[in-house]
């Protein structure tokens, strides 16, 4: 259990839970689940790019996610194609292009399953540095933007009319989600990153009466799910991302059941 790679995996999981908690809350509040999917699917292209360029794949992923995030941000102002259709098109074509790019790289032997569903063995010290360095930067920026983002989420019209928050705040938030998705990708896997952003806040919703409290509960839910998932991955040799998401889903189901039980009792 306490082999070095497990300690790295647990540390990575906790770091990711810490960042994914508050950001995931905003993804839920602002209904950006599909947006997160698109970013993470584009991540595979980033991995391919990183490998081709001979740099750390995580750098390729961060760059790709931020670029795609900026592109999506710009595209939401167009009216030609409905936004959810556009996200669907981009999300799956990004995944397809990524898969093609990765599979054509003859000289690189790549464990695709590890990238798609997460792999605890894959976490290096460099990844940890990215997770914690990037994570604290994201959390710091989020703290600065917090009040404006809450206002923007409650009413975009009021925030803009009163000059309290603008498109710049939204763009910055898009960038933060892109970075968070990129750093969470390795342990949770490309196909399951969005689940880690969505399920813990959904589970935390019933346990909190304010946005900050909900974020903290979300971090706790995420941390428990990550540790449980990583342990299960180690014990039964299942993909870590799948185990983490399954653990989070179990907590979500329990929160729903507990909520229903409380309502019946009162």
């Amino acid at each position: 259990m306490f082999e070095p790679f497990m300690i790295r995996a647990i540390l990575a999981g906790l770091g990711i839970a810490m960042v994914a908690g508050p950001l995931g809350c905003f993804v839920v509040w602002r209904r950006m689940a599909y947006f997160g999917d698109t970013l993470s699917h584009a991540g595979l292209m980033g991995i391919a790019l990183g490998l081709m360029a001979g740099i750390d794949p995580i750098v390729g992923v961060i760059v790709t996610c931020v670029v795609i995030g900026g592109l999506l941000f710009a595209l939401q102002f167009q009216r030609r194609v409905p936004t959810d259709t556009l996200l669907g098109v981009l999300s799956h074509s990004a995944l397809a292009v990524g898969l093609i790019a990765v599979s054509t790289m003859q000289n690189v032997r790549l464990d695709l399953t590890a990238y798609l569903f997460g792999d605890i063995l894959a976490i290096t010290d460099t990844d940890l540095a990215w997770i914690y360095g990037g994570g604290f930067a994201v959390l710091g920026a989020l703290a600065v933007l917090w009040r404006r983002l809450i206002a923007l989420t409650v009413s975009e019209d009021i925030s803009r009319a009163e000059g309290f928050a603008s498109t710049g705040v939204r763009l910055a938030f898009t960038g933060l989600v892109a970075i968070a998705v990129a750093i969470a990708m390795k342990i949770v896997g490309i196909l399951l990153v969005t689940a880690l952003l969505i399920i813990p806040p959904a589970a935390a919703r019933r346990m909190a009466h304010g946005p900050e409290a909900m974020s903290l509960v979300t971090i706790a839910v995420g941390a428990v799910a990550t540790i449980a998932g990583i342990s299960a991955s180690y014990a039964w040799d299942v993909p870590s991302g799948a185990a983490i998401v399954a653990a989070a889903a179990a907590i979500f189901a329990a929160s729903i059941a507990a909520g229903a039980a409380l309502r019946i009792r009162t």
Partner: protein
Amino acid sequence: MSAAADKTPAVALVGAVLQRNDRYVLDHVDLRVGRGEIVTVIGPNGAGKSTLIRAVLGLEKLDAGEVRRAPGLTVAYLPQSYQLDPALPLSVRRVLTLTHTPSEARIKAVLEELDIGQLLDVSALRLSGGELQRVMLARALLREPDLLVLDEPTQNVDAAGALDIYQIIARQRARTGCAVLLVSHDLHVVMAATDRVYCLNGHICCSGKPEDVGRERAFVELFGETAAKTLAPYHHHHDHVHGPDGAPHPHHHHHDHTHGHHNHT
């Protein structure tokens, strides 16, 4: 109000044009709200009232014309419709302090004034429509703006409550000297507290003091005799300017000189 202040309005629309699907929503609209002035926009459904207000606030992009806003103007906005998303837990206190942090004493005072003092620490998601309306109005008042923009501030509120709300708006103006731009359907209650009225139906049909606008034929055509009499209790006919085609010709009654009579301090 000083004459100088009157020359620089808090906000003005100049020749505002906004088209949607080749239809004019705003057709060369001129509108000004002087500092300390209460201006009401009335008009039938679909007349573009909310769009006009949103254009003033910079929320709608104009196809032509411009918005002139006094520099450094603090704005507070009560939109016509908003929904709180149950995914985001929020207390009433949190809603009230959304874009501004008023003192605890002010929060208590304004909530008491609006008769919702008991709601301060409850979840905003549990409020009825009327309660939420009052909370959103309280939020706008608590911002202590230079320009208070209210889109149908009394929807979901009964007639007695509506009267209270207009008195509260008038008191806020008297206390802070803020300019107020509002959209309303409650012709008779709102007029008591309004300095100037713009009657909108895509274009400005008529504008002026409430009692004068009630005499305009354009107004009578839009709203009917009863409404006109509400505005102009001493209704008497006199000549109107109309285009040769019989359409209401823009006949602005800018009774700007009357604003000086109001005591805004």
